[in-house]
């Protein structure tokens, strides 16, 4: 939202006296050719689907289409909110989002602080390069790695736990629902940890070095420098990112749940998007699927707007 304002501000700054739109269009025809096709595609695939929201207020049948289907008002939403599975799915979505958000937030800050303390730059760069890799591989690859690692039949996680004497029997991680949230959280952390340090390392790199020098002169050790200079330097960015990410808490992806979930763990693995897909494609109830999308969008919009409001307050130092 702040981007929008900034963009509008900068673009209104320069306005030449108008010459009449036809001659302007003529003189800028090249710019029009360069921008309009791309914009049409963007509009088609971003805005036109909103039209489909009508389906949530109908008893939609694919054969009759949006125009032929019968309107039923808020019936779909009533059915949705009466469904006990809806609340289970909502719980799964929220819990997994919050766990991933928390783990990623703490993990990224700790890793960035530790990397920042490394003076041997070849080592630092190597670790960075390695930890960025998982960000670039698909969830399918990650799911494969998890399946191999967690296999009760010689997977490296089970082997490690058994060698360390923590367990005696291999654990069937993939078949027990209670592990699913943890598997999801650790997989996400493993995939994105390195990547999410980029922004924090950039902030740490921008901290005025004179601060560290002055602290050294005053006799500060590296821990007090970390506590009094590095960490306070990170806090504004960290808070901003945390607040902004909170806005997307219902839309944090479904790939890992789709790939790693199975009927055995579905009570813990199903999230809103998969629930919507299930209704639409397996049961054929498109209206309910759309109603779930609408619910998600409305909650997200409210969250995004309120966290943006919070972030702006934070930016001006009004809270915290």
């Amino acid at each position, binding site marked *: 939202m702040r981007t929008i304002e900034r963009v509008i501000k900068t673009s209104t700054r320069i306005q030449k006296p108008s010459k009449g739109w036809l001659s302007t269009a003529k003189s800028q025809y*090249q710019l029009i050719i360069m921008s309009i096709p791309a914009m049409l595609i963007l509009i088609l695939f971003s805005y036109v689907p909103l039209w489909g929201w009508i389906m949530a207020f109908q008893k939609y049948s694919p054969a009759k289409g949006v125009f032929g289907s019968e309107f039923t008002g808020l019936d779909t939403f009533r059915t949705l909110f009466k469904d006990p599975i809806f609340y289970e799915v909502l719980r799964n979505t929220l819990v997994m989002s919050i766990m991933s958000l928390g783990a990623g937030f703490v993990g990224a800050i700790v890793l960035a602080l530790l990397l920042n303390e490394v003076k041997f730059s070849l080592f630092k760069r190597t670790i960075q390069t390695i930890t960025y890799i998982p960000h670039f591989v*698909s969830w399918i690859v990650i799911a494969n790695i998890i399946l191999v*690692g967690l296999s009760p039949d010689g997977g490296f996680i089970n082997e490690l736990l058994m060698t360390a004497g923590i367990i005696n029997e291999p654990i*069937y991680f993939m078949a027990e629902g209670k592990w699913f949230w943890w598997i999801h959280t650790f997989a996400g952390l493993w995939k994105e940890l390195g990547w999410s340090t980029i922004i924090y390392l950039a902030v740490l790199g921008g901290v005025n070095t004179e601060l560290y020098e002055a602290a050294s002169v005053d006799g500060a050790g590296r821990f007090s420098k970390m506590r009094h200079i590095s960490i306070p330097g990170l806090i504004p960015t960290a808070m901003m990112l945390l607040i902004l990410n909170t806005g997307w808490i219902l839309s944090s992806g479904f790939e890992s749940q789709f790939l790693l979930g199975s009927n055995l763990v579905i009570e813990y693995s199903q999230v809103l998007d998969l629930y919507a897909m299930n209704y639409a494609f397996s049961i054929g109830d498109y209206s309910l699927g759309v109603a779930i999308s609408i619910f998600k*969008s409305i909650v997200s919009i409210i969250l*995004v707007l309120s966290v943006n409001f919070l972030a702006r307050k934070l930016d001006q130092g009004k809270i915290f």
Partner: protein
Amino acid sequence: MRGRPLSSVLFNIFNYSFLLLIGIITLYPFLNLMAISLNESLDTVKGGIRILPRVWTTSNYEIVFSNPQLLSAAVRSLLRTVIGTLLSVFMTTMLAYTLSRRDYKLRKILTLVMVMSMYVSGGLIPFYILIKDLHLTDTFLVYILPGLISAFNVLIVRSYFDQLPEGLSESARIDGASDFQILFRVLVPISMPVIATITLFISVGHWNSWFDNYLYNTSQNLSLLQFELMKILMQSISQVTGSASSTGHIDATLVNTTSPESIRATLTIIVTLPILLVYPFLQKYFVKGITLGAMKE
């Protein structure tokens, strides 16, 4: 000058070992899969393969590459990545250029519409119905068209163009250059860092895509490599958990000649390797690109 305090030395030891451990945890699964893919499949079943193969063989790779279904999926994945990335980078750069031109009359409205698109989403089902209504299901086009323009990438490129000296394009215009010439002859050559960044993001996105394949292109003759890997993965998961598999079956000849575990490992390495070969060379660019983009946000 005092010597380094003991706590600092201890911290260094802890810090370097901890970071090394993180590095190992990140790399180990890839090395493990690499070892499995290069190991005799009958021997793999006995277990205990870590980072080195016990019985070296390239037969898993030979089996994968001699399978016509997998080979043509690989070709399609490659085609999708190359065509999709070229078109997307081309269109993104052009749109970003027009939106960086302060005198462009449509600049304000187009920017607003574009930025808003990052916040609105009709959701999965309406999008699916749109794709169906446009008759894009069971076409190669569905891989390219819907994701052609991403507002985020346009913003990254536009902010790069914004900070270039304005005199460059101004003097080219005075020399009578058209907008196309200004963009592709003057601006693009000096904007390679940002072009490289979005090229990496877009191509990795195409290479890794599978969900559109799963949802829109169910027929075999349009399947991609990631999707083929997914089918084998889903079958293995349903075996592990003893539940029925919902997504099609893999080629029986594959399983007869080697084990699913070996095929999975081999395919995983095949889809990961291209990324590993390209990305370290672009690292210095995208770190700058993502920092710039995030700061702007």
